[in-house]
């Protein structure tokens, strides 16, 4: 699915269907702009996407008890800073990764959405723990959301209750794979 979306075939077909700019508008200008886009945008896109892979700064948002294992993951034994993930930024304006650490209650959900909205683009979301994925243990609780998909889009699911730090690191590696394959905006 992802690969189909991103394949060059689709790009060329979309260019033909675009119609905004007639193909014979001005050969020189049209070609030059295309050349500029090709020449600058593509390598820069690669470079910046590569930068994003290795510089995921998680926002300091704790929604429930999985924050414990998140803390352990940034501790010396697992040390996610090896992967460029530093859990030391106070403000959400400097962050680009949101790890939902556990249960999202009905009281927390609007805040989570607001924090997500206020983060600068691009931003990625990891759902950590069974509660964040489906509600987990609290599937029949009156105050817990059944997963956070309805609130914010999720990139990677990390199961466990709470997940081991290793699993979280594995999720981060999966997220890096995903960023690699997505389009640079």
């Amino acid at each position, binding site marked *: 699915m992802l690969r189909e979306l991103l394949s060059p075939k689709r790009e060329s077909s979309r260019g033909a269907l675009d119609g905004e700019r007639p193909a014979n508008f001005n050969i020189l200008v049209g070609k030059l702009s295309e050349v500029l886009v090709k020449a600058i945008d593509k390598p820069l896109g690669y470079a910046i996407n590569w930068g994003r892979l290795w510089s995921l700064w998680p926002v300091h948002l704790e929604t429930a008890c999985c924050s414990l294992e998140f803390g352990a993951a940034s501790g010396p034994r697992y040390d996610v800073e090896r992967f460029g993930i530093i859990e030391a930024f106070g403000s959400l304006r400097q962050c680009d990764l949101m790890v939902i650490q556990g249960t999202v209650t009905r009281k927390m959900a609007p805040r989570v959405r607001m924090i997500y909205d206020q983060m600068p683009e691009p931003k990625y979301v990891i759902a950590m723990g*069974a509660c964040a*994925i489906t509600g987990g243990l609290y599937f029949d609780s009156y105050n817990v959301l059944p997963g956070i998909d309805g609130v914010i889009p999720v990139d990677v699911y990390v199961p466990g209750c709470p997940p081991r730090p290793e699993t979280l690191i594995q999720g981060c590696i999966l997220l890096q794979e995903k960023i690699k394959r997505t389009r640079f905006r």
Partner: protein
Amino acid sequence: MGSVSGMLRALASGSKHLAVKRFTLRYPEQKLKFVGDGYQFDPKEGVGIAGYRGRHILYHDKCTGCQLCSIACEGIAEAISMVKVDKQYKQNKKGIMPQIDYGKCVFCGLCVDACPFYALFMTDDYELAAYTKEHLIYTPDQLAVKPKYQGTYEIKIDELGAYHDE
């Protein structure tokens, strides 16, 4: 002066740790060693056998489709549902086996405690992250696979401090 000496001692203590061995387990290359083959349960004794509680393993030749694991999970996380399997086993007349949704499972191991036929155990596998929720649902066939996980590293303690080593 007391404060100055306190400051100096703090600095000395911090600098001293520049010589202590790093504690980090370099995870993707190094993996932890656990006790045993994962958590198991002996229904005759009524006592579990110590081990890590990771992903389940299902022995198809022992599972009778009795649904006890599913019932045990009902009040906990509703992670286990019984699904039809293609193959027929003589001990499993109904042809149903547990399918586990790891998006819901909390790895408490009470389903293992509930299984009276030594069919459902847990393993050391914890690398379960996925891109979609569907990938987190493990069918009986996936559950039967023994994980290829092999960890060898554990904590060593000596005069250089605690660190991870084989």
